[in-house]
């Protein structure tokens, strides 16, 4: 089952529009898909800005995982397939099959573990693909998907140069060697070229600058691979990069859990700088679970606050699309452009 996450750099960057376009396209092709989300989406009015939002119209046959309270508000006919153990602020997550088309609000599992469990349940139904709707700038739960579509736009910043630089940085963070390893590691490990453990560190919540010093203390000349399974801070990466210059021999691999860890470390441009500094000093960045950036979408819309209310505003869409496209090596779409939805769908689901 192909799991595609729609992830945003901020609120109102076009996640729902992109998801709605993909769902519509799947419906047009009569593709049997699943849909869930890690936040709350599909509502008529934005919970924060009060501005109208794109709605999610689901076709018959679609499998949806959403919270019980969202089902109270749906205009679609549905049959419950499974009540999961996952719970959100809107009640238990329920997997349903859409029987008659209608609007649906999504509020699915809100953590990576719960999302993983629910996706397993959906996979058992024999679906070809599942779209996982993101929420705001949240990324952690998305660590279980295979492909991500990043959405960015004026809501995040009205400076196009910033958006393109950040898009470049995000894309760059996903480039890493695929490194198999213990799926449930309980320690930070250092191994030599033969895979023999030469040092370990206790796992803490975050791998920060302080932990870097501890790591350096167990880093012998034979150390070839460092596995850090937990969250890493930007300061830790910067500190490691600083010391990497004097470390010998070169050619070591720093293995993180997945690219979302790099994204969560800190400001993307600074994180990519630290990662590139590590590379420059002989470190290869690797991930135990790789995720592909399938595409990016851009949205020129932003909510502008005037007299204490939000009103719709726009930056130049063509310039935004052209500039971001030039900064990344994946296809970029303005999903509202003619043919963009079809092109994105075919690119993701060839």
């Amino acid at each position: 089952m192909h799991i595609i996450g729609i992830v945003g750099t901020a609120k109102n960057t076009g996640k729902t529009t992109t998801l709605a376009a993909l769902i519509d396209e799947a419906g047009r092709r009569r593709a049997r898909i699943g849909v869930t989300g890690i936040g709350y989406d599909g509502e008529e009015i934005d919970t924060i800005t009060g501005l109208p939002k794109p709605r999610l119209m689901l076709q018959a046959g679609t499998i949806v995982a959403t919270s019980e309270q969202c089902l109270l508000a749906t205009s679609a006919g549905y049959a419950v397939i499974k009540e999961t153990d996952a719970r959100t602020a809107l009640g238990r997550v329920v997997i349903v099959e859409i029987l008659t088309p209608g609007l649906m609000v999504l509020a699915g599992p809100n953590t990576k573990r719960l999302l993983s469990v629910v996706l397993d349940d959906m996979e058992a139904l024999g679906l070809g693909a599942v779209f996982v709707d993101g929420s705001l700038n949240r990324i952690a739960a998305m660590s279980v998907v295979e492909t991500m579509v990043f959405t960015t736009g004026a809501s995040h910043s009205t400076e196009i140069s910033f958006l393109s630089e950040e898009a470049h940085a995000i894309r760059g963070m996903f480039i890493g060697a695929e490194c198999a390893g213990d799926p449930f590691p309980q320690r930070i490990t250092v191994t030599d070229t033969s895979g023999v453990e030469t040092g370990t560190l206790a796992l803490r919540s975050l791998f920060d600058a302080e932990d870097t010093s501890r790591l350096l203390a167990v880093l012998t000349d034979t150390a070839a691979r460092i596995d850090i399974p937990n969250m890493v801070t930007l300061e830790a990466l910067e500190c490691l990069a600083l010391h990497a210059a004097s470390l010998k021999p070169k050619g070591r691999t720093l293995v993180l859990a997945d690219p979302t860890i790099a994204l969560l470390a800190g400001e993307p441009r600074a994180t990519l700088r630290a990662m590139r500094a590590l590379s420059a000093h002989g470190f290869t960045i690797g991930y135990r679970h790789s995720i592909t950036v399938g595409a990016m979408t851009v949205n020129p819309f932003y909510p502008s606050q005037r007299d204490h209310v939000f009103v719709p505003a726009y930056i130049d869409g063509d310039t935004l699309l052209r500039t971001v496209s030039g900064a990344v090596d994946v296809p970029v779409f303005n999903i509202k452009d003619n043919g963009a939805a079809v092109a994105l769908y075919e690119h993701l689901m060839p």
Partner: protein
Amino acid sequence: MNGPAGLHGRGPELTDKELSAMAKILCVPLDPVHDVGIKIINAELAKHGHQTLLLQPDLPMETIVKRAAEGEYDFIMVSRTLGYGVAELLARFTDLLDAAGIRERSKVVIGGKPVTPELAAELGYDKGFGAQSTIDEVIAYVEGRELPKEAAGYTRTRRDIAGKYSYKFFDKEIESLLDSICDKLLAWADGKTSPGVERMKLRDAMLRETNPATFADLRARYNALCDRTITDANEHKILPKGVRVVSAGEREALATFLGTSTPYQPVRIQHNDAQPVVFKFLGSGCPVMDITHGKICERWGINGFLIINPSWEARYEGLIEGCLTHENDGTITSLENIRLMRESLDESTLLTVRAHRGLNTPETVLLAGEAGANLSKIDLVYGSLGAGTDPERISVDGIEAMRLCARYGMAFDIPGNDELSGVPSWKTLAGLLINVMLGKKLGAKAILKPLFCYGPHIVLNGQMKQNFVDYNTAKIYALRHIVDCPIWPGEPIAFMTQSEERIQSANTTSYHAALAATLGVDAITIASTDEAYSRGPICITSRIDTIRAVTDAFRFMGDAQIAPSAMAGVYTDEILTKIREVLREVEAKPTLHDAIYAGLLGSEEDGAYPGKFGSGTVTHLKE
């Protein structure tokens, strides 16, 4: 005291079992400055025996995550004021907790004034507590308990406004005068009938008739007593201009709305049980819009509604049948419309149907009773002087309507709105008291509804020149001196003190509500902030304006009192004296309608004119 590991709360004196039942909670003011809310939550949780740790405001998120990981907390409670950009910050916090593995063991909770369950879900939190949440709800959530429905604000109960009153008269002279006035009225009305009364009897029979032939006969007799416009509508489906049947699509849309709009956490307007229940008008012309507004008002805690009928309906003999709508003020009185409203509104919501206006008073009460309405509205005096019905006709019809109220166990309210025409308060109050005594004699419970606002006579005579408190208070004092009867000031309260400006309008409503609460009245009717100035249908936000304002006024007053000045006593004595004078004069007349024609309960000089609708239609019953 400090518990284990520097945590706040009870600890060392507890058994292991009790300790294991306690939750371990990290309280995080994820805010540069504001931490008052989370401090209160922290203190309350500690008071309930939970181990809490309150962090200082404005710590870096990474520091908080590390502290959260070190403590192995059951709950991480975050408070934060919200603005644009803050959502992303709060979302990043849940992301960090998830990436750090903390969400495997800790529930993450967000609190703040604008937080809703939907926003909490969007931000990725397991639970959200907002402005309407209570400390008890937070404690119950932490303790894994279902909060009793009432404590969670789920349970709405229907209050019996008239139930606790004896209708005993304390002022013996007034009681004796009312006794005589009502006896004479009943003696006059004995053996008399009207088309309105006869139609009610026929409708009553039609509602129960199962034989088609008999039904057709009843229908024909009913039609014979109706105006042409009504028979055209009922027999030939030729509806009056602007009236149409509510479409199947509209009914379907309403059903969808009702299916999705259950007020799962209604707000309570009253701060204590002694404070009055709060009513609003419904009468947009469209029952679907009325219900939509009604459901939203229920969510905001409104306790009851008064269905107001259109003025044109009052002028016709007979009522149109069906679920009907029209683009005009007042919602058409039909069994289908009333029933749809009754069935759509919460069981706890009181529903009043106005009956005294026009030529269909008994039939309206019959339909209200059959549809399950809780109250009706009958005033023989105002029905004539303010609502245009002939005094004799409203007397005959009103008496029958009160009998129907007794049959259905519905109390009826008596609006004193003739005062708004310029009638002095004592004349209006005398009229109300006549209705109370008449209802008592007919087995129906009346509710006094003195005007609780500015009025033309008051403006001219300066009783509210110093303040709005004394004279409104005096009316209540005077009525309490006379009889043990429920009082429901209206209608609406604060009328004529409101302006087109919504905040001013909400404010003045709330001040009158506060005064009403302090006087211990049973109910109040409130307007929306655009009621007098809407230039069309009332908007729902304006309805909520006044509900919220009154809720705050009730919270502000609690069980405290507003102290009127000494003038309230002076006005009370004046009103009592003048009520007695009016009733003596009325009693001296052969019947109530003679008194009305004589202007004793409101004269042409006062701005009150006996109505003409239905004039000459009262007849003697055939032997």
